[in-house]
């Protein structure tokens, strides 16, 4: 493969991960902002809200992790 093609292919991996990260950043921002608003309304429930927020964040993060896994599979030969 010519050198320019190899460089373009190598560009694809971080680009894909960046696009996945945009979506996850947007989702996490919304989740955390809703949690903060709820905690401000009712400070005594902040323990439960924090737990639920962490769990929700792990779900949203998982999709970006799937993109990372696919990069590993392609790059390191699964």
């Amino acid at each position, binding site marked *: 493969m010519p050198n320019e093609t190899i460089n373009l292919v190598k560009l694809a991996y971080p680009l894909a991960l960046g696009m996945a990260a945009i979506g996850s950043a947007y989702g996490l921002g919304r989740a955390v902002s809703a949690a903060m608003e709820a905690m401000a309304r009712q400070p005594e429930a902040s323990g439960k809200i924090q737990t639920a927020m962490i*769990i929700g964040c*792990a779900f949203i*993060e*998982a999709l970006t*992790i*799937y993109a990372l*896994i696919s990069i*590993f599979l392609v790059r*390191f*030969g699964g």
Partner: protein
Amino acid sequence: MPTHDASEIPGGEDARSGHDGPADGSPAQPSDASPRVPAHEVETDRAAHGGDQGAGPDAGGGGAHAGGHGEGEAPELENLWNILAKSPLNKEGTATHRVIKHFDPYVEDPTQASLHKMNQNVFFSLISVGVVWYVLWLAMRRRAMIPGRLQSAVEMVVETLSNFFLGILGEKHGRRYLPFLLALFLFILVNNLLGLVPFMKSSTNLFQSNIVLGLCVFFYVQYSGLRYNGPKKYFLHMVGNPEGAVMWLMSPLMLVLEVLGELIKPVSLSLRLFGNIMGEDILLGVFAMLGIMVTGALLRPVGIEHVWLGIPLHFPFLFLAALTSTIQALIFSLLSCVYILLMLPHDEEER
């Protein structure tokens, strides 16, 4: 990946060329030629961790080996297994070599070789099982009414988790699922955190060990659904609880959808855990290798050619890795709990 770009970084050349000595010294070392040993193994400055003062530099300290083997392997920190296999102890006639060759043989067949790639994971998961077992045994040796420190700490952890899971599953029927969920949580937690201890490796590093955990959860959930509901209600649950002729007509479609949904749940569980743990391992490995390269670049004008220890650039990421390991263990067991809840009959809602 750094193998291609290391030549552009000053000090990358030296970091590579410094370590053909020990690696090529002993003849017919199986760990050199076998494809399963990750090529870019990295040794870090252990003294920065505050422990392991006796651990000197090792053959793997050169970072990006130019050996030409293992181009497709991801970088990873050293662990006991790798160090032992590559150390000078592993000479042909010694007992060490016989033990290592027994547990980690070099095979030609790529299928068998890919199976043997998991040997380290099995070994370190046995270590984590031993750790969990030992701590719990120590705590419960004398079940005093007024508990000592270890017993009260363990009781606190178990009780917090039990209340958490019982809050989801319901107090009445949830108790019988608690042993599985607690064992799952503790096992995954110790497995994940073991990777952060110097010279150890998290056994949840490969996809194979995660899909095993996912399959355990899958079979347990289906079995408890079958046992609690009975086969007829279980099948009706799979078909979507049809009432009326229209829904009965749609029921094959619903069956396909439900079966697919049930199958994808353990896969997504294990992929999430696998991605997080392997990602953090590679992150630590790459940053440690970067630290060695940076040290090589900095020390090269002074005249020091071979760099074996480096600035531990990966140190802040240890805390991030500890956080995500704990959270992922919690997420795994929490989701298993929710899947069990979905299998139980829903008329528990009226409490």
